[in-house]
């Protein structure tokens, strides 16, 4: 009797051979996201002080940004955040194909966002409105500050979009080959968290850059 119990206990111990702690991995991801929040937070702080010092110049700079491109990109990012979130629901319900397709839609949305950004920046570069450009050099100090912050903050955000899309692509591949499953999807969740952070930052960038004119 007692020997059979100890035998089954030993067997049980031997079956647990995989080290895994999803809660800790998620906490680790959040700790990283906190450093990202402080990084962008510092930039938002710089933006607020300079805006307070140059309100008219910031409004003038902002009036040259295309609100419709900014609004379309906001809708694109929010939609892509939703598709990542829904793909987690899908994988939990064992709907693998749906999960993969939703992740691919997310990557498509990231591409649309970056193409819009390309046309937006491209147009400004044609006008010479970039640090060192002819139209930029004749601007007054405050408006120069606005454009420098505009390029740096949306540029750093764009870099995050590219990294996030690459991560989502990696996750989609892991779902496809069965490394992410309905009861083991920590990487999908963490990549999703990163993608939502990209959305979160844009939620503040959009009104502060485009809508203060």
């Amino acid at each position, binding site marked *: 009797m007692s020997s059979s119990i100890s035998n089954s206990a030993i067997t049980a111990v031997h079956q647990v051979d995989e080290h895994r*702690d999803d809660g800790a991995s998620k906490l680790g991801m959040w700790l990283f996201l906190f450093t990202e929040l402080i990084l962008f937070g510092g930039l938002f702080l710089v933006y607020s002080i300079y805006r307070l010092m140059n309100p008219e110049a910031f409004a003038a700079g902002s009036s040259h940004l295309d609100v419709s491109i900014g609004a379309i990109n906001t*809708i694109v990012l929010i939609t892509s955040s939703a598709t990542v979130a829904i793909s987690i*629901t899908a994988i939990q319900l064992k709907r693998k194909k749906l999960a993969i397709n939703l992740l691919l839609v997310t990557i498509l949305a990231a591409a649309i966002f970056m193409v819009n950004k390309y046309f937006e920046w491209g147009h400004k570069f044609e006008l010479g409105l970039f640090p060192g450009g002819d139209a930029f050099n004749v601007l007054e100090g405050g408006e120069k500050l606005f454009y420098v912050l505009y390029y740096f903050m949306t540029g750093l955000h764009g870099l995050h979009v590219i990294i996030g899309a690459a991560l989502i692509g990696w996750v989609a591949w892991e779902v496809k080959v069965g490394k992410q499953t309905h009861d083991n999807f920590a990487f999908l969740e963490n990549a999703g968290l990163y993608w939502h952070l990209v959305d979160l930052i844009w939620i503040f960038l959009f009104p502060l850059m485009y809508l203060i004119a």
Partner: protein
Amino acid sequence: MSKEPHTNHIVSFSNQLKVWIALLLLTWLTVTIAYIDFGNLTLSIALLIAVVKSTIVLAYFMHLKFDSKILTVFLILVIVIFAVFIGLTFFDYALR
């Protein structure tokens, strides 16, 4: 035990879609309100909507509402630290 996923909570498809629609409506509201002149309040209103939107993203899309509460506590701590940064910087700026 250690192989269990950390969360068994599933946000339903319909709830995810509701969150998505709410975020789209708030985006529409932000853009619409930007063209109405509220004077000094314009920026505050835009930021207030942004805070509401990000709270929805954090709670539902980022799953904080259903995860261990320690994550929310940490997030609030980070926001408090950031608020201290802002407070000290503006204090410095105001007293120059």
